């Protein structure tokens, strides 16, 4: 029973990281109908930038904020320079560009930093909290993950629900042509959307690094799990990304704990298949619009 409890806590902490990456994928997918396969690698690259800053003596929080800003810039630049010119052609083209970007980012990190994995410092202690005399599998750092991700989710929700900018972004995502006819500068908002996804991707990179073998490829699995989470959540809903992330995190934690950690990716695949068979449109998909 106490093992189950530990696996659950572990699953929640990891699930939050997957939810963050899932949110990044959702932000881009719902605006441009593109799966950004480079999202994880971009987060890896910005985390390496954080690594460089930290090893030069920059304070953790300065590096943290700076890297989120850089993540925004990389995301926005990718949309403006690489994705925008492909608009109006087959939707496969930009997806292939993102796969190319994934290879470029990982190659770049390998060329600069080497392919060996190393340690990445956490903002807080990674030893388990003590509750009532026993140590639980939830550290100060896990609490930080929980707070950071929930803050990001809440921020996204407030932006979309309650601000004029969010209304413009939703209109752009749902109906680009109508939004333009109503005076919405759609191009600017698409760039902004990719930038926001870049922030989420960078955050996922920073949060995943301390608990994984930090190297050019440590985000590959996070991308796979984040993608699973996004699909379970319906690919278009930020709330779905959060719930999907938690489901994925818990499922993988139980598979790893009870069946062996080598089976974790297989567990994610099984989860993805079950989810697609049971509810192909995802848990939080929009209801099909009524046609009159």
């Amino acid at each position, binding site marked *: 029973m106490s093992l189950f409890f530990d696996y659950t806590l572990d699953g929640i902490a990891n699930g939050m990281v997957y939810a963050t990456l899932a949110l990044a994928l959702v932000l881009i997918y719902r605006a441009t109908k593109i799966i950004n396969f480079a999202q994880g690698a971009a987060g890896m690259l910005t985390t390496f930038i954080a690594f460089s800053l930290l090893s030069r003596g920059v304070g953790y929080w300065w590096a943290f904020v700076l890297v989120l800003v850089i993540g925004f810039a990389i995301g926005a630049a990718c949309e403006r320079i690489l994705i925008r010119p492909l608009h109006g052609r087959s939707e496969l083209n930009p997806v292939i560009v993102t796969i190319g970007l994934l290879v470029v980012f990982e190659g770049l990190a390998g060329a600069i930093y080497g392919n060996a994995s190393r340690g990445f410092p956490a903002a807080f202690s990674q030893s388990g909290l003590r509750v009532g005399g026993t140590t639980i599998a939830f550290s100060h750092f896990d609490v930080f993950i929980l707070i950071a991700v929930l803050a990001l989710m809440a921020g996204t929700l407030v932006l979309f629900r309650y601000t004029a900018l969010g209304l413009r972004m939703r209109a752009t995502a749902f109906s680009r042509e109508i939004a333009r*006819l109503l005076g919405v500068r759609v191009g600017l908002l698409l760039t902004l959307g990719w930038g926001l996804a870049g922030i989420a991707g960078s955050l996922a990179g920073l949060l995943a690094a301390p608990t994984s073998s930090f190297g050019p490829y440590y985000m590959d699995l996070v991308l796979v799990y984040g993608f699973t989470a996004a699909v379970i959540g319906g690919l278009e809903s930020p709330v779905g990304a959060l719930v999907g992330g938690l489901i994925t995190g818990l499922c993988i934690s139980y598979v790893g704990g009870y069946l062996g950690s080598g089976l974790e990716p297989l567990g994610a695949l099984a989860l993805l298949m079950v989810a697609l068979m049971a509810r192909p449109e995802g848990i939080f998909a929009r209801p099909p619009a009524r046609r*009159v």
Partner: protein
Amino acid sequence: MLEVRDLSVSFGAVQALHSVSFDAEPGAVTAVLGANGAGKTTLLRTISGLVKPREGSVRFDGDPLLGRHVETIARMGVSHVPEGRGVIEELTVEENLRLATLWCLRKRERQAAIAETLGLFPRLQDFRRRHASTLSGGERQMLVLGRALISRPRLLLLDEPSLGLAPLVTAQLMALIRDQTEGTDLTVVLVEQNARSALSVSHHAVILNLGQVVVSDAAATVAADDALRHHYLGF
């Protein structure tokens, strides 16, 4: 005043518009009539910037429109209501209206403008917080018309507003369009398949046939010309 001159549009090998020219006066409704495939929708989409023409010019109050971004043309006071009731179904009625006010009204003016528009369409008042996907065809048409008027446009482009509506609703809609136009400086271009009801509210009529202007005359004259009506408008 809207001035369209020698406008030609091609989609690949198909030429949709052949050197189309006409004027639309402020304070009047100009009907653009014709059969399916005559190029009516393409004409409106070219004016609002959604379609790039091969040649020709479009000026509104002297300013050229062609070559500008769709959103820039919208911000010049051009409201285009596309065919098929372009509500954004995932947004609520109120959000659909608010979206159109974002670029032109201050924050404190928006709520008043939305209330005023809902006053024009009392049916929508009860649905303001409902998603637009739950509206009927007539209600959607009211919403898009209200959304087009809320930004106080100088040029209103309406594409088949009567499509699929009951005759009574169509009549109300046409009366509203006329009321919004007469005595103001609003220019309205009304594309319609339903020629009879369009002519009843229009001041001027342009008939397109296979992408060419075949008639451009006062609406009353067109309505009175039996041969013309039979030949091009089918009634």
